[in-house]
């Protein structure tokens, strides 16, 4: 069962939840109501004793999908909540809902609800969508495909850092929904790890550097609550059990199922336990010892057997108890012992014995590590040791989580940046080169071959590295997403999730302001680079080029703007259609997916590129909605550094005929909406073999030079003639 409530993702970037039905009061009220509900859900999710939503999604069908080996699932319980999964009565794993476990809301501000399951070996057995309101996956990525994607998690080991990898990693991404798949991956694995730790499938969070016992944090808890959250543990032994363990005959005078002993133990150092059990003043007097590094252990019991025994006053040692932690065996002595007359907590059971053992620091006791209290029972020569194990609940630890799982709790976007360091550095280096070129283009343009070499080299780099390697291809979808986010919910985190796209867009935005669309279209667009390179190759092989008369050219320009405006309109309305029509951009096929796609898409991309053989950059000129979007503010650019001469257009149209996108009007003006800043015209501008005014000047210079030489030669001749 999936719901996508009027929210959508466009392409690589996510957006906030959108008013899908326009600006009516009804839809606004609905959105408001949703917001309130979401806030409540969020608040509820933040409470420690969580109610679980899992039941709403975990039906027989879902169980079969996420945990095929299980035939039954129990109720969600525990902290964090997870439903135990059984096969033939045997526990084989746990099923959970990510929103129950990972209380952080999704990037839409609303919880992502994925149903996941893990087995007792720490492997994910399956995952499926419960519900999401992520601005997600629409026609390009229908729900069934999303489930296919999630199904690939089955068998993943939760200890491995499996991340969706662009370049053939362990799990494929949903094409075109990069951020979403990363977010899902993150939710599932974080939730799975938390569930696994709490159920001891993974070792509990070892106290990392800085992990500390939360001694101060107090909340009023009843005895039952302490038992429930693990602050107190219990061991019950019946007469029959003890007799069996000691291999002795059970005592006929005693009922077999009667309690031999019911023993409780807990670490009383944290005030959440100690103060509740002992009361404020008693706990306070204990505080001094605790401050010196001692720890307090609470032990209580009722039943036939006494854990204290009868020797301790004389011998000074409790000979029926010992404390074991790791490799340490700690004897409990009279000096450590304090009797407790009564317990402050209201619903404590009727206990025959209660004790407090204050362990001095010399014992080496570590409150953060697991320990067990062992009870010795002896009948004649037969002895038995019964352990009561204690694991400190995470609720009583502060700081440690951060130390241990800083990897997991770091915001997702930070992880993405850290993972992409190499590509980011390469991109920044390339952009720096480009920036240098832009500022000094007149110097570079003076050398035609230099410019050509640099340009071809940069275009190849853009295509191969930015395009095919890093998939850093900007798209009109980014523009639509951004506009939509501005109109709806704007979260920087969305855009930060794709570091390369973010950097590129930042650069392009500034370049747009300074120089216009050309910086992107001419240098940073991998598809544009592909087209241009194909054309250069075809011209090298003297393939006849189709020249489009300027008048026709001019009249074809508007088409791309229409395409863009159409997409913009669709994006503000039915988002699904926008996604479909955005396929007018062959970028996904040619660049992100490297032509590995369904045939119709490959055909389309192929046709567009085939056009490049005969006409330079035909897509950029007439079809590209991204180019159109970037072209619109061209008149408002700040710097107009492309040099033109007075003679341009009047006497000469060489630049116009050379311009790859025919952006130069017959009157010599460079149209900034179309110019891709290839600097060819600038090269010509400086070329005294191609630019007529320069040719003239050069000719006159050569003429002058020639005449000078002639006169010199004549003088010499004359000089020789006179005797």
């Amino acid at each position: 069962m999936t719901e996508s409530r009027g929210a959508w993702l466009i392409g690589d970037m996510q957006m906030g939840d959108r008013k899908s039905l326009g600006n009516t009061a009804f839809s606004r009220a609905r959105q408001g109501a949703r917001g309130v509900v979401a806030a409540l859900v969020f608040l509820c999710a933040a409470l420690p004793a969580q109610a679980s939503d899992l039941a709403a999604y975990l039906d027989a069908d879902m169980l079969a999908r996420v945990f095929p080996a299980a035939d039954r699932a129990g109720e969600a319980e525990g902290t964090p909540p997870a439903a135990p999964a059984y096969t033939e009565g045997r526990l084989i794993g746990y099923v959970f809902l990510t929103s129950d476990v990972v209380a952080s809301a999704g990037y839409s501000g609303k919880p992502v609800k994925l149903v996941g399951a893990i087995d007792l070996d720490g492997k994910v057995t399956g995952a499926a969508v419960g519900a999401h309101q992520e601005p997600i996956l629409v026609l390009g990525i229908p729900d069934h495909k999303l489930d296919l994607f999630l199904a690939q998690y089955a068998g993943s080991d939760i200890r491995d850092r499996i991340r969706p990898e662009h370049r053939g990693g362990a799990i494929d991404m949903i094409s075109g929904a990069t951020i979403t798949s990363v977010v899902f991956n993150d939710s599932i694995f974080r939730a799975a790890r938390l569930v696994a730790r709490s159920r001891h499938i993974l070792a509990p969070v070892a106290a990392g550097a800085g992990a500390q016992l939360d001694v101060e944090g107090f909340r009023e808890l009843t005895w039952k609550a302490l038992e429930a959250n693990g602050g107190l543990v219990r061991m019950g032994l019946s007469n029959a059990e003890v007799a069996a363990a000691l291999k002795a005959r059970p005592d006929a005078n005693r009922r077999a199922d009667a309690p031999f002993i019911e023993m409780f133990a807990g670490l009383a150092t944290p005030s959440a336990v100690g103060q509740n059990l002992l009361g404020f003043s008693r706990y306070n007097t204990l505080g001094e010892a605790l401050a010196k590094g001692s720890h307090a252990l609470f032990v209580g019991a009722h039943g036939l057997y006494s854990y204290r025994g009868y020797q301790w006053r004389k011998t000074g040692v409790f000979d029926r108890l010992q404390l074991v932690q790791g490799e340490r065996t700690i004897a409990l002595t009279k000096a450590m012992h304090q009797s407790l007359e009564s317990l402050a907590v209201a619903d404590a059971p009727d206990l025959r014995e209660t004790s407090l053992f204050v362990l001095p620091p010399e014992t080496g006791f570590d409150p953060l590590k697991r320990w067990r209290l062992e009870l010795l029972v002896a009948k004649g020569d037969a002895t038995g040791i019964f352990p009561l194990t204690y694991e400190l609940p995470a609720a009583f630890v502060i700081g440690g989580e951060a130390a241990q799982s800083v990897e997991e709790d770091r915001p997702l976007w930070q992880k993405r940046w850290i993972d992409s360091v190499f590509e980011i550095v390469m991109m920044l280096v390339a952009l720096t080169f480009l920036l240098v070129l832009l500022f000094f283009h007149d110097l570079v343009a003076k050398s035609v071959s230099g410019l050509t070499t640099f340009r071809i080299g940069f275009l190849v780099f853009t295509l191969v590295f930015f395009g095919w390697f890093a998939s850093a291809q900007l798209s009109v979808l980014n523009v639509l997403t951004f506009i939509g986010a501005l109109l709806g919910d704007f979260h920087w985190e969305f855009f930060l999730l794709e570091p390369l796209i973010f950097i590129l867009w930042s650069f392009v935005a500034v370049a747009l302001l300074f120089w216009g669309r050309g910086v992107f279209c001419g240098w940073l667009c991998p598809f544009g680079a592909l087209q241009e390179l194909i054309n250069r190759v075809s011209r090298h092989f003297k393939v006849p080029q189709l020249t489009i008369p300027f008048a026709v050219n001019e009249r074809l320009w508007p088409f791309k703007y229409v395409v863009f405006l159409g997409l913009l309109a669709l994006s503000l309305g039915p988002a699904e259609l926008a996604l479909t029509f955005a396929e007018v951009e062959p970028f996904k096929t040619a660049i992100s997916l490297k032509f590995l796609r369904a045939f119709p898409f490959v055909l389309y991309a192929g046709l567009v590129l085939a056009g490049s053989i005969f006409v330079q950059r035909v897509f950029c000129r007439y079809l590209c909605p991204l180019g159109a979007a970037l072209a619109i503010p061209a008149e408002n650019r700040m710097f107009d550094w492309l040099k033109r001469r007075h003679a341009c257009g009047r006497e000469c149209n060489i630049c116009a005929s050379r311009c790859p996108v025919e952006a130069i009007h017959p009157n010599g003006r460079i149209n900034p909406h179309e110019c891709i800043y290839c600097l060819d015209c600038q090269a010509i501008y400086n070329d005294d073999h191609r630019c007529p005014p320069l040719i003239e000047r050069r000719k006159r210079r050569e003429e002058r030079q020639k005449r000078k030489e002639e006169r010199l030669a004549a003088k010499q001749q004359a000089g020789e003639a006179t005797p």
Partner: protein
Amino acid sequence: MTGPRMNRRRFLTVSACAGALSALPSTLLAGRAYRWQGSAMGGWAEVLLHDSDRAAAARVSALCMAEVARLEREFSLFNPSSALNTLNRTGHLDAPSLDMRRVLATAARVRSLTDGAFDITVQPLWEGRRENWQSADVVVDGGAVRLTRPGAAITLNGIAQGYITDRVTALLRGEGFHNVLVNVGEVRALGPRADGTPWRVDIGGARPLDLADGAVATSRQDSRRAHLFNPRTGEAVAPGRSVSVTAPTAMLADALSTGIAAMESRTALAFSLHGVDIHLHTETPKEES
């Protein structure tokens, strides 16, 4: 019991097949099983990891290693600060651990069961101090352990390995494992193999032993350095005979096998105890493996 030696190899073998395994032929099971080898009582450790149970096995193996290390601090002759060595050096031990008390209690019980053949106070004989050796008493009361004779010393090598085996088994049972074979010098099974067939243990005889639940311990005199002594005569037991005992717990099996191995042949053959199986066989003299 296979006897102590400074450089003796001990290994802890845990074949743990978590209950989720279906009935597979044992060869296939070998692929699913997870074998972990560590160190105990001075030996070396070897760790072999297999496949899907790695998570649970890695976690529990850490717990087992800690428990073995803890008990070595109690019983190891090779650790100068162990509780045992403290007792031997000073003749008494304050606030003995529950583990120490259990082992000493069982030692006393087996001593009386074997009519004194199992005697932990033979330590001076092992150390070469044979003059005027006499068996001593170990008195345990809640507060301390005392040796009744000056110069007396005890060795727990005939029983402690079994005890450690039992503790590790209990740990695994507590962690939810149901099909376990533990070997810390002595072998203890918890349940049969996952497919229901018993474990097969080589005890040096012609046929391997089938073990479905319970323990088996084997004692034989070490031909290079004697560690089995007849407490009645103070003489080292002649090599060439091996005693294997199956019993409900490894500690009991260990102690009994040591005691029976120290008996004269006639007594040994006549010995029997309810719930305990005894296998005696003669060996041709060969190096111990």
